[in-house]
């Protein structure tokens, strides 16, 4: 069964170990500014919410890419950017309604979560199990994605 990241914001303490782990995996440095997962802080509410690509079926980024630089990793279902093909045109960054594919000044390419090839380091580093990597059925992501898709009119054509 395919697995996906499950995020429970209620358990997040804002420690950013996930951001460090992600950046370490992808750049070899501890560098939250280059993490593909981002913890958002809700100061007024006293809440934290880790957030990254849900690898949605719609794959808005992949469809919008003019040069076929984004493809599906058949093993994990992740939508993966090929650095060789990405020209850095940024069309995907406005096409993704979740804001989870972003342009990196450092590389001149776009970057996004690739599930670390099936062993997501953010989940491994999370001390409170706010981020886990579980069977897709458990995640509630289907529900979230369905509701997101429903609220996005241009997605309805696939319904």
């Amino acid at each position: 069964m395919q697995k996906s990241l499950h995020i429970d914001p209620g358990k997040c303490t804002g420690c950013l170990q996930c951001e460090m782990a992600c950046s370490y995996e992808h750049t070899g440095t501890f560098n939250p500014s280059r993490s593909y997962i981002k913890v958002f802080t809700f100061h007024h509410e006293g809440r934290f919410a880790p957030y990254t690509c849900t690898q949605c079926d719609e794959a808005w980024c992949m469809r919008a890419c003019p040069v076929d630089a984004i493809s599906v990793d058949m093993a994990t279902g992740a939508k993966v950017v090929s650095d060789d093909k990405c020209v850095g045109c940024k069309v995907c960054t406005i096409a993704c309604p979740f804001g989870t594919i972003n342009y990196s000044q450092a590389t001149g390419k776009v970057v996004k979560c690739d599930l670390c090839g099936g062993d997501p380091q953010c989940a491994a580093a999370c001390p409170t199990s706010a981020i886990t990597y579980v069977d897709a059925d458990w995640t509630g992501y289907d529900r979230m994605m369905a509701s997101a898709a429903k609220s996005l009119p241009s997605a309805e054509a696939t319904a």
Partner: protein
Amino acid sequence: MSWTRNVLRVDLSKGSCTSEPLNMEWAKLYLGQRGLASKYLSEEVDPKCDPLGPENKFIMTTGPLTGTMASTSGRYSCVTKGPLTGAIACSNSGGYFGAELKNAGWDMIIFEGKSDKPVYLLLQDDKAELRDATHLWGKTAWETDDIIHATHQEPQMRIATIGRTAENGCLYAAVINDKHRAAGRSGVGTVMASKNLKAVAVRGTQGIGNVEDANAFMQATNDGKAVLAENAVTGQGLPAFGTQVLMNVINGIGGLPARNMRDVGFEGAEHISAEAMAEPRASDGKPNLTTNAACFGCTIACGRISTVDPTHFSVKDKPQYQGASGGLEYEAAWALGADTGVDDLDALTYVNFLCNEDGMDPITYGATVAAAMEMFEDGNITTEHTGGIELTFGNAEAFVAITEQFCQGGTFAEDLGLGSKRLTEKYGRPELSMTVKGQEFPAYDPRGIQGIGLNYATSNRGACHLRGYTIASEVLGIPVKTELNDTDGKPELVKAFQDATALVDSSGLCIFTTFAWGMDNIAPQIDAACEGDWSVENCLEVGERVWNMERLFNEAAGFTADDDKLPKRLLEEAIKDGPTKGQVNRLGEMLPKYYEVRGWTADGKIPEETRKRLSL
């Protein structure tokens, strides 16, 4: 190597920012952060200088582990000569600022001179510039944080700033970062204000990629995290209850001072405890505690995020204080609560918000108000001084009112900003100042707990639990239980805690890890990250070296053995009741032995041979 090897030197008089290489010879002797910055300060600043004069320097510094995946790697320190004490000051803070500074590529920023107008430092990776802060002067720390964020449109920018109290001359003003983390003690924020430096805003995107042995580092830090997770204090107690877990514990053993340390034992303790913070309140069914929160990299997450009851008198008509923000930690709850006799949790949480918003050390602030309250009750201070406020022990309304007045620079603000030593001297009651070297005690009574008294008396920055937290041993049995009222073995215990703490404070890690970690957990993490020998033995020696260097700074500043003392109240006024009834602190039994185990002379001087042994 994990140091960035870059020091940013900011000459505020000239308005220049220059980069220079880190002195690696010193780094090998003093590691980083507290130790290394104190070395820089010792070398560059005349210990006799006016702490608020342009000749003093103000250093913001990270450690080699700051910003790495080691647990609790979010620490930075502010090092300077402190205005409250005249001694070397080093205040440590968490949050996200320190890691951001490291990510921007800097081990330390040395501020020198004095700007002729208010400025803030804008630091974006290797781009450093001083910006005009005239529009920020007079703003609170929270307002300043919001304005700078809005100006630069960078939500990820991290900001350390002073509030209004520092500008108003309060001698114990803190540096507030990330809105509710504080480099709190000894008036480091006041030094910033004296230099017309309002804030430091940092965005770092360079990353830390130069750990010495990456595989060994990931192994050592993972091992360390597992130890923290499995430990009852760091794995369960601190995340669930925060440091406030101690309120009922310390009160129960007869170690909780109350009402300017006139009493020991506080009848209202349970109303302001961790347990009370978790209790749903009548008005909105929510508890005071919203969530626990971590500083950068921390897998413990002891931080408190709280709300004040929206119907409480303190915030009723102030929606801006009805959201969640930094809640009460144990020391603040004690100083603002037990020491003032106020047991109104919401009032204390609100005052704590104000301490964060306007940047004052809640320990010294609470204890100074407590001294004022005692003098008010004794008639030395009257409503004429306070602007009509009935400043009696236990009066929550008065406490809230005087705090608001203080933050705004009102009638009694100048007096309260002096700290209890100068305040009690001014009103003719110096014996009522509960301080060592001019700095107020934290929340453990040295009459009930002997070792902590010796630690307070000898602490290089004035009374402070964070210079040698013997409570771990004396109360919690970590690493071994020692008896509260014993003095035997306490000098050795104090020295061991002081030296180990100095090392941890020099690494970038948080001292709270040492509830679970020993040096054999810490040294391998440093050793894997840094070039050079970072064995347990060497780490302990570095800690001892740092302690002795600080002492030498103070000695040159004019401090002597005569300053290693506790107020008379703690030595002579026995505890009136409770489990520790009849006890006083027996400092005299411990101090000579302490000097001996430190290799100092009988009058507390560091002799040549000890200096030599420690390469000082």
